């Protein structure tokens, strides 16, 4: 790889890594797993960097690897482990939403969603992608994104706890 490409890769990581890592963390709920996913995706991107850079799509490329890998991993893990309920995993910082009960509850509900639906919400509301952009990342049709989104919202409506006055958080 040419030195210019190398420098360009470094610049891309410096500019995009945090946003990509935050998205990965929101989908996985596990910082270490998110870090692993991001690093693996960047390794793959680095190996194909000249062509990815030429097409001017590095962030979309890396995001697609992260999201599809996260969904696959979550599906494989579904029956093999149980998350801690009351405690944070060791090494995982306390979520910054502590003290904001409404948002905490909302995030808890998001974590209850199937990985595909969770990914759609993160792509739409954290990464600000359109439905067609989200479809490209997920490798599915726009219709599928719409239906996943609709199911996610419907499920959230069921899950969000009611306030004592009958309203939802």
């Amino acid at each position: 790889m040419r030195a210019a490409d190398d420098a360009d890769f470094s610049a891309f990581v410096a500019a995009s890594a945090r946003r990509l890592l935050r998205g990965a963390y929101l989908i996985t709920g596990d910082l270490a797993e998110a870090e692993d996913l991001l690093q693996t995706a960047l390794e793959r991107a680095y190996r194909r960097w000249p062509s990815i850079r030429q097409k001017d799509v590095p962030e979309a490329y890396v995001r697609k690897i992260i999201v599809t890998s996260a969904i696959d991993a979550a599906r494989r893990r579904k029956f093999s482990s149980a998350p801690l309920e009351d405690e944070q995993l060791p090494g995982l910082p306390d979520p910054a939403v502590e003290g904001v009960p409404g948002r905490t509850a909302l995030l808890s509900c998001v974590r209850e969603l199937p990985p595909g639906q969770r990914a759609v919400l993160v792509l739409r509301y954290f990464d600000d992608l359109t439905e067609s952009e989200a479809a490209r990342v997920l490798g599915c049709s726009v219709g599928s994104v719409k239906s996943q989104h609709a199911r996610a919202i419907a499920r959230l409506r069921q899950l969000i706890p009611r306030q004592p006055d009958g309203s939802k958080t």
Partner: protein
Amino acid sequence: MSAEVNQELKAAFETASEFVRPHPELAERARAGARRRRRRTLAATAGACAAVLVIAGSAYAAAGHHQHAGALSRPANSPRVLATVDYQVTQLAVSGRYLYLLAGQNSLLTAYDAATGKLIRQVHLPNDAPALAIGPGGLVWLAYSPDQGGGGPTGVWLLSPDLRLHSAYTGLRTNTILPSGPTTAWIADQHGLVRLQLPMPGQSGRATAHRVPGSSLGASPGIAPGWWSGEIGGRIAVLVTNAGVNDGHLVLAGLPGLRFGGGWQTHISAVTSTGSSLWVTTYTQRNGETSLSGPLVRLDSRLAVSTPAPMHSSQVLARSESVWSAGDTIWVATDARGHSLVCFTAGRTIGPVTTMPVSGEVVALSATASTVYVNALQPPGSYAPSHVVAYQVPAACR
């Protein structure tokens, strides 16, 4: 969903991930990972080509063409650097596909892939961690507590092998853990043994701790006595401290009248158990001078000295500093020149003592039947970054 809830989702995602920061050397790590992957691919391709050549060569020879085939020898089994760390490793433990590094004074536990050295997960612990042990089933036990004069939380964790999940018993202070089942372990406090049971990592349930009647260690109250524990002849031996750090001696739980070491004659620096005997590195202090190395001693199930003659007379083992075991293989770190690490078998046959190609001061070690993982400081006592290196166990030590 209303626009208001959409906004709430946006805000929740922003806030919840605000603390997330990528590793500052992420780009370099990705480059290194990509190069490793490329090397592995090339090696696999070369291996496949070699295999094709071997098959072709065999077919050619079988067809009656008895020409010199040339040596398609396997690469030499050279040591492999699995990890480089810039902190002091206090304990290594290998189990299944995982190699664990404990940096007790840095409150850090790291899991690596034992075959590739890939970092699996790093966990920051609530406090200094003096004890790490792997139980049957591969679950990881860990004790954390403040060092002398320090403050902060105290407790025991049981972690899943990949360190992703854990269960905990907080408020319990110990320096040694001896797993007795997948979720049970013995710990030694100042009054004797405690049987600890924790829920499976990540599962709800109650942790329980029960004192074992008649398990006195004969140690003084107020001093955490257990620094090491191991099974021998169906009993549990514990390294306890009564009057100070130089009075460390071994006792059998429930039989505190039997003891080995302590006083000014024989200080104990390390102990390991093969189940039927204990191997102990000792040192002495004479006229105020402390020699940090000394003879390696074997103890029987009554804590009586039973060192085999070849080990007793070995000039290398007379300068032992620390000892570990894996099955019937004993590993000894020494300060004898050119013999930083030696090994021997201690099953039905004893020895011979074999020197490993390791230099520096061996501070942590863990082994399987075929591979030994070593962290050595080079030069001895230095704080420079050190490597964790995997060596093949010599045939003489298997």
